[in-house]
């Protein structure tokens, strides 16, 4: 063992292996140490919110979709007042959340699910995901949104999916704004419309349902066949249609599927804010979607979960939904923000379908749509 590889040893290789050995290993150590510190910091961050109070707050986990949003201060205030800790866990899009909740029925990921909409309601109810809960705030809810007489789900917000039109574009073109879905198949409106694939987009699916309600189960596919012949463009999701196809944002389609809240949002989030919204909604095309919340069966904190539902129905939360999630409140005592009051259209008699009818036909309709429009 007397012979050791040292720096004075003649190099047998072209590569001067043993040179800067010491500084190198030191750097490696520093590097590992830095990563270790970072990983400890993560652990610390995870615990940072566990501030001890007099009695330990009850943790309620709320499963929701990735467009969920709420003012953090509002949550903190409610948590403080009710000795709660509310964790919002986003689980992909609205469909994914419901499907994941169904798959994990036996070992629920959360205590409350928020974000099941009209299109997926029957699937969630049939899977017996929820337990009944009658919120003290039920009386404040507009009764037309109370669809479940067993109170397994509670309506939280409502939004209409509508055709949006670029008003300036139609002015320049000297073309009247379309007023009905039928107009879209007119030759004058050829190549002007962009919609979303209902198999991948939830507003896309809502628009499909709008056509089913408007033209009936016998006629809606004919409408789509004509629309296809009239050069409709189909994108995968809302943001591609709205930001890449819509003339308002540099595309070449002045008619797109979006929300009733989009025109007021265009006003509110412009700087400076215009007096008139640059886009408008075709009222006759609007399809109403209600978003529900429910307490997941199997929760160990049912009472606290109920309190979270009450929070979602509170005036403050309800008044916040227009500008955080671009939907409308369901309670009668919430004020709309000024910009919504002035620029939003809420149709009195929107297109609608019964959630159980949707549940029964949804997959078949999507398949039929795919065959008619894409193949």
């Amino acid at each position, binding site marked *: 063992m*007397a*012979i*050791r*590889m040292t720096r004075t040893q003649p190099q*047998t*290789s*072209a*590569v*001067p*292996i043993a040179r800067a*050995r010491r*500084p*190198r290993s030191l*750097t*490696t150590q520093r*590097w590992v140490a830095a*990563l*270790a510190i*970072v*990983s400890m*910091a*993560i652990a610390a*961050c*995870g615990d940072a919110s566990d501030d001890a109070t007099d009695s330990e707050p009850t943790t309620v986990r709320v499963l929701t979709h*990735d*467009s*969920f*949003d*709420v003012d*953090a201060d509002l949550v903190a205030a409610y948590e403080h007042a009710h000795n709660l800790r509310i*964790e*919002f*866990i*986003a689980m*992909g*899009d609205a*469909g*994914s959340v419901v*499907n994941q909740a169904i*798959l*994990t029925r036996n*070992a629920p*990921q959360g205590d409350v699910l928020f974000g099941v909409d009209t299109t997926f309601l029957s699937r969630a109810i049939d899977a017996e995901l929820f337990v009944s809960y009658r919120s003290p705030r039920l009386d404040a809810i507009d009764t037309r949104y109370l669809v479940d007489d067993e109170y397994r789900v509670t309506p939280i917000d409502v939004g209409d999916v509508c055709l949006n039109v670029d008003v300036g574009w139609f002015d320049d073109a000297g073309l009247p704004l379309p007023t009905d879905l039928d107009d879209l198949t007119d030759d004058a409106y050829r190549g002007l419309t962009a919609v979303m694939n209902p*198999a*991948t987009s939830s507003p896309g699916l809502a628009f499909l349902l709008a056509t089913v309600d408007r033209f009936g189960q016998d006629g809606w596919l004919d409408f789509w066949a004509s629309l296809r012949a009239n050069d409709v463009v189909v*994108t*995968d*999701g*809302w*943001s*591609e249609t709205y930001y*890449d196809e819509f003339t308002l944002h540099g595309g*070449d389609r002045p008619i797109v599927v979006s*929300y009733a*809240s*989009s025109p007021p949002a*265009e006003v509110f*989030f412009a*700087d400076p804010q215009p007096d008139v919204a640059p886009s408008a909604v075709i009222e006759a095309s609007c399809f109403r979607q209600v978003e529900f919340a429910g307490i997941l069966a199997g929760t160990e904190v049912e009472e606290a979960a109920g309190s979270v539902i009450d929070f979602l129905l509170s005036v403050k939360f309800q008044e916040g939904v227009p500008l955080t999630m671009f939907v409308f409140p369901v309670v009668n005592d919430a004020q709309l923000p000024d910009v919504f009051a002035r620029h939003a259209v809420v149709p009195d008699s929107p297109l609608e379908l019964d959630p159980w009818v949707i549940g029964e036909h949804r997959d078949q309709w999507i398949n039929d749509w795919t065959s008619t429009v*894409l193949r």
Partner: protein
Amino acid sequence: MDQRLDLDRVAVTMTPTRHGRASTVRFARVWLLVIPVVFLSAFFFYPVASIVGLGLWPDGRFAFDRVAATVSDPTVARVAWFTLWQAAASTGLTLLIALPGAYVLARLDFPGRRVIRSLVTVPFVMPTVVVASAFLALLGPRSPINATSVALFGSGAPTIDLRRTVAAILIAHVFFNYAVVVRTVGGLWEHLDPRLEDAARLMGATRWRTFREVTLPLLAPAVWSSAAIVFLFTFTSFGVVLILGGPTRATIEVEIHRATAQLLDLPLASVLALLQLVAVVAALAVYGTLSRRVTGQRLVAADHAPRRADDRASKILLRANLAVMAVLLATPLLVLVERSFAMPDGWGLDHYRALFAPASTVLAVAPWQAIRNSLIFAAAATLMALVVGTAASLAATDARSLGARIVDRGLMLPLGTSAVTIGFGFLVALNRPPLDLRGSLLLVPIAQALVATPFVVRTVLPVLRSIDQRLRDAAGTLGASPAKVWQEIDLPIIGRAVLVAAGFSFAIALGEFGATVFVARAQMPTMPVAIFRLLGRPGVTHFGQAMAMSTLLMVITAAAIVVIDRVRVGQIGRF
């Protein structure tokens, strides 16, 4: 070269003392295998098997009818064929365009080389949804090319519209995967002893012949490695196909997502997931056969290899490649930057200010927190990926060990598996003690590390395997213990590779979206999740802020990679 290595081994085992050490090494390797095996079993095989099992045995009985119906469905066959050929075409095209780039960045010395080599990694980690939007602008009727043609020939000039075409998919795949080839192949290329090529040239071989007969065989392991990764990435392509290919084109990945997230048709999703798995395993087997030839060779310090581009051919090659990088990689990113500064009347910083405004109504948290979340999660994921990946690489150094080969390939499988399968698998599997990770923050770095670990292995392993066994033997003969041999020979050489891998992992973790979106908490969005949420909102300022956030992601990624690349050059990089 294989043969030579084998002969060395025989010589080694003839000495009794050496035999003892060799078995110590083998023993250590077996133990190192434990880390990747446990990681892979707990966070990949178990979750995926759970969700696939749930689909194939819905009520405890095998759903034979559904499986048979799915397998014989012509639509499924069509989707599978499209998935396969577009992935093969994308891989070929990426190699064709990126190999010259790898050469230029590894072997030619020119001002800004290191920075450019770091920057080409940025496209790889950008969220698809953001980049696809830039591509739509560049490939559509209003593209700069079409604008030029209209300006020259009037409004009747022919315009090119590549939106919703296969061409758009292929171009975007090259954009995203260019860095895989440059980093994996370039990492080995800059270590090749240039004297081998010089000798060939001196003996009268042409440049092309030298490349074909000397350089390429030496590079083969890295080329196949990168090809395998690009193939897996493009085979499971999701966003690019959906957005750029239009709704009539679907990969298996798209169909799995639809079946799982939309239809809750688990039998269909499971069959498709298995189909994807079979294809991926087959691809990995082909790759394994092709890359088995171990190249023992002399490696030199990276700084020795590059030469000034002073002859005509080198200059042309250099300029052509820089032009390709500028057009293909920089232009789409510049579109995003341009949009982040675009105001209704001119240019400004308003979108950036909005991101850092204290009372942002746009996200649940202040946007700067998304940046912090991303950095923390990515650091944790990098650490996990380095531990698992380095252990796997060390264990798999001996390419002939069966266990090592299986782990090596197994770690690649997550790249070829649908994010939705993994996301849903986590849910149905990791919900009972001892692995009850429901709602855990750890799920985010775990999901990111699953995707990053193969890159660690693919970066470290080729370097480790190409260490000349004679160096180790020489050290051993001179009396060094196996640990000493490892410390003096293996460590200096792989130290550099590990740091390259760290940079790569960090960048991947920063940009990961597919799996993260299933396991992230709403209050702790990462940057890609925040961008996705901003893009889901109407209003011109939201779009601007999404672009501003994308630009920040780009800058942070670039900064992280530049810093890591600097570190390795400064200290660890020197042999």
